[in-house]
Structure formats: C-alpha cells, structure tokens
C-alpha cells in the first residue's frame, strides 16, 4: 500500500477552518483484487439465486450417501394442508415452523404457489430446474476460474500472507476487536490502513467457504465422483455434500450481510470507491466524534 496525499484536499487544508478535513488517501486495493472482487460478487449473487431455484426441485436435505422422500430428511421446506388451509411448513430436525408467505407457500405474480424459496429470491424467478442449472453451471465456471486466479496471484505476491493472515499480535487483539465491532467503532489513522483481525479472519473464512462450495458442488457431480471418489468419502457421501453445499452457502450469505453492514457503517462511498478505483481515504480520529 502506497500512501499519497489527496490533491483535491490540499487547497482546502489551507483554510484554517477546514484544516481538519485534510485527509490521507492510500492506494488500498490492487487492480486484480478489485476485478476479482466484483466478478466474485456477481458470480456468487447468481449462484445463490440459481442455487435456490435448484434447491426448490427437491427441497429436502439429508446426511449420508443417499436420500429421497422415502428416507429421513433433516431439513424440509414443504407446502401442506393444515386444518384445511394450504401452509408453508419448514421442518428442521423435529421442529416445524409455519413459514407461509416466504418458505414453502408463497405468491408468484399474485398467485399462491407451493415452492420452497420464494420467486423473488430465485434465478430465474419462475420455477425452472433446467434453466437454473444452466445459470448455475455457467457461473460456477466464472466463480472457479476467478477464485483460482485470485488465490494463485494473491499467494504469489504474498497478499494473503501479508494482509489476510493474522499476526500473533492480531490474534491477541481479538477480544478488543470484538468489543470495538460491537460498539461499531472503526479504526482510524494508521490502524485503518491495515485489515483488523476480525476482517482478516472473515476474508480468510470466505476463501475457505468458496473453496468448500466448489468442492461440495463437484462432489454432487456423478462424473466428477468417478474422477475423485475420495471427495465422496471425505465429505461423507453425496447427500452430505449437498447439505454442506447448502450450509456453506448460508454462511456465505451471513458473510455478505455482515460485509454490507460494515461497508455501510464504515462509510459506503469511501469503501465502494476504494473497491472501484483502489483509492481509500484513511478515516481520521475527528471523523468519528
């Protein structure tokens, strides 16, 4: 990261009343990080939408080698008659929830329909397994190639090792960092020029989760099973792989929610600009008073 002074801020700094606004702008994100970030965002967005459409074709999850309606799902999103009325019922283990309107039984263009995930969350919006698979597998290539380019390159230039791997001092600062995050306090000055420990762990988790998505996804492919049967054994069978695929995707959704909230809290314009142009205005102490 190279520090430089923001030219536009310089003339303002000469006026005493505005001196506090003088700010340091650093080059935070390299071109490849920015490019792979947006491709990743696009691919993940489409893969979640199309993935939910695919899920709808068989809205049950199982553990183990095999599983169908004739076996025992640990999660099911169904529509069923409850007291003579159609309801959406989501079952996890032995707990059942009425999720009518969102899960199991929801409106599609004004008409109530039995579908696990609602139309507004799926790609395409209508229930179509064939098309959802086309979207999913096209963007699976985008996601995988993008992830590979990012990983090889950022390991090569030691971006992962330098900027993402937490140092011992970082690890010791976890409790303090957790507290600061709860208080919505954001680092300023020198501290804001590097990722804090929770950020580092979150980004490393995302790398692990995307890797997990790709591996569990491949393990659902009968062709790839013949290439790497050990993956089936490692993950505990095809239905376990399918369930893990769903669980990892849920964790990625959780990451995205936290990520977006943090972007908004940390200053959305500065954050989004830094991911487009690479330039990031370092927040100063007085900014947050």
């Amino acid at each position, binding site marked *: 990261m190279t520090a430089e002074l923001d030219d536009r801020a310089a003339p303002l700094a000469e006026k005493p009343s505005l001196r506090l*606004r003088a700010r340091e702008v650093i080059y935070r994100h390299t071109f490849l990080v920015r490019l792979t970030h947006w491709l990743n965002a696009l691919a993940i*967005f*489409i893969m*979640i*939408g199309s993935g939910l459409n*695919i*899920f709808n*074709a*068989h809205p*049950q999850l199982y553990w183990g*080698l*095999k*599983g*169908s*309606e*004739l*076996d025992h799902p640990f999660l099911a999103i169904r529509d069923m008659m409850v007291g003579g009325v159609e309801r959406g019922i989501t079952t996890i283990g032995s707990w059942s929830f009425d999720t009518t309107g969102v899960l199991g039984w929801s409106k599609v263009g004004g008409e109530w329909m039995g579908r696990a995930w609602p*139309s*507004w*969350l*799926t*790609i*395409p*919006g*209508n229930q*179509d*397994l*064939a*098309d959802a*698979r*086309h*979207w999913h*597998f*096209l963007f*699976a*290539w985008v996601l995988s190639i993008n992830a590979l380019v990012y990983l090889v390159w950022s390991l090569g230039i030691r971006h992962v090792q330098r900027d993402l791997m937490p140092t011992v001092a970082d690890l010791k600062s976890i409790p303090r960092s957790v507290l600061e995050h709860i208080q*919505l306090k954001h680092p300023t000055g020198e501290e804001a020029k590097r990722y804090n420990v929770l950020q580092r762990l979150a980004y490393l988790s995302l790398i692990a989760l995307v890797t997990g998505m790709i591996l569990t996804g491949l393990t*659902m*492919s*009968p*062709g*790839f*099973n*013949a*290439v790497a*049967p050990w993956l*089936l054994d490692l993950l505990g069978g*095809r*239905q376990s792989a*399918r369930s893990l695929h769903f669980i990892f995707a849920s964790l990625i959704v959780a990451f995205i929610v936290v990520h*977006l*909230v943090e972007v*908004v*809290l940390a*200053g*959305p*314009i*500065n954050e989004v600009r830094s991911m487009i142009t690479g330039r990031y205005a370092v*927040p100063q102490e007085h*900014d947050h008073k």
Partner: protein
Amino acid sequence: MTLFTRRRALIGSLAGAGVGLAGCDQIFQAGRLTESMSFQKVLAVAQTWTLHTQRLLLSGGQLAKEYQLADLSPRFKANGTLHPGGEEYAKQVAGSFADWRLLIDGLVRTPLSLSVAEIRRLPSRTQITRHDCVEGWSAIGQWTGAPLGMLLKAAAPVPTARYAVFHCADNLDGEPAKGGAQAPGQYYESVDLVDAYHPQSLIAYAMNGQPLDIPHGAPLRLRVERQLGYKQAKYIKRIQLVDSLHGLYGGKGGYWEDRGYEWYAGI
C-alpha cells in the same frame, strides 16, 4: 466520511434490503434473458466446457463408485413413468415379457433382435451404484445386466456411428419442449460411444437381485453410472446407432434434453 451518521447507515441498509426485495430475477432480468435464444447459447457454453473437462479427467475410463449391500436404499424411489400403460405393454406384462424384443439397429453391420431371456444368458455384470436424480435426491441400488458395449460390439457398429439412442415404451407427454413446438412425449435417451462402451454401462434386467419391476423399468433399462438419473432410460425397446441426434424427436438427444436439460448429464 465527515457527514456520515448512524441514521444514514440505517437508511443505507434499508435501501440495500429494498434492492434485495425487488428480486434477484428482476435485477438481472434473468427471466427475460433466459427466454432469449442467443442467451441460451451463452448458457450452453458451460455444458461444452463441463463435457470436455470431465472427458479429459475421465480419459482413463474411471469407474463410478460402487457400494456395499448394506448401503442399498431401503426403498428406491421410482421417478418419471411408473407404468407405461397401453394395451401393448399390458400384454407384455401378462406374458412376463416373454415376447419383449430388444432391437439393435441403425448404423450397424448386423442388426440384432434379442429376447430378454437371450440377454439374461449373456455374460453379466452386477454393480451397486448410486442413482442421482437431477432434482437432487439419491438412491443406491444393485443392478444386474448385460454390458452395453458387448451388445453393441455384437451388432458391429459402422465407423460413422457416434451415438446410441435408446427408444423406450413410455410416453411422458406433459411438459412442452423448450423454445419450439411441442416435442413428442415418447421417452428416449442417448449416450455417445465413450459412455456406451464404459464397463459399467449396462442393459439391466435385475435390480436388488430381483427381475426389474414395472416402476423401475421392466423388463430392460439402461445404466450409465457416471451420469444423472434421466439418462437411465427405462422400458427399452430399441437401441439405434446414429451419427447425429438431429432429426430424432426434438433433436436434442433425449426427452428431458428436448425440454432444456443438458445432454451431458455428468454434472
């Protein structure tokens, strides 16, 4: 962000959630895009990459994983046609399929017509494999049958033969074909010769040690173990060797393929 306040943050988050509520589909116009034939071609690119990558990785003719008797599904879900119906099939059922013939013809030097009893007398292979439906469920079953490659070799395909097309006795009607006129509802499937000659590709006549029952495809069905369930055609009457899939039914090489699903179902 000097002017930045918590309240703004909240408004920002709500606006973000609003975009979410507008729907993934609307943002990408996915529905409209999907309808467009040129975008269908873009989407189909992935299928070609998947086929070529998997073919490269499977060039050693690797086998699908085989399981143990203890792994068998207690109840193996039957899907698609559960009974082909019709007078002709009913007669076959009444006669225990004694008159059922499997015809192997098309681009072959010696067309064959085999009875189920003749096929049962041929060398057989028994395998316990997992059946993965495109919908997402899996079931494990034990299959016994004559290796497809052996049957095809007996018919001696000519060098121009590229695909084996399986004509079935069931008619699924129902769903219209994608992007065109209603394709015939007759079930059919096809594989290329790479998969046809794979050692685990069988014309199966028994499941879990019993003759195939009607919901699972009696009297003869296909097993191509490195592909999804819809490739495992049931109630097979005829195997036709061809050089191209165009001109057969909807032209995409299978009942579900004519309705938008991938011809290569290894994924």
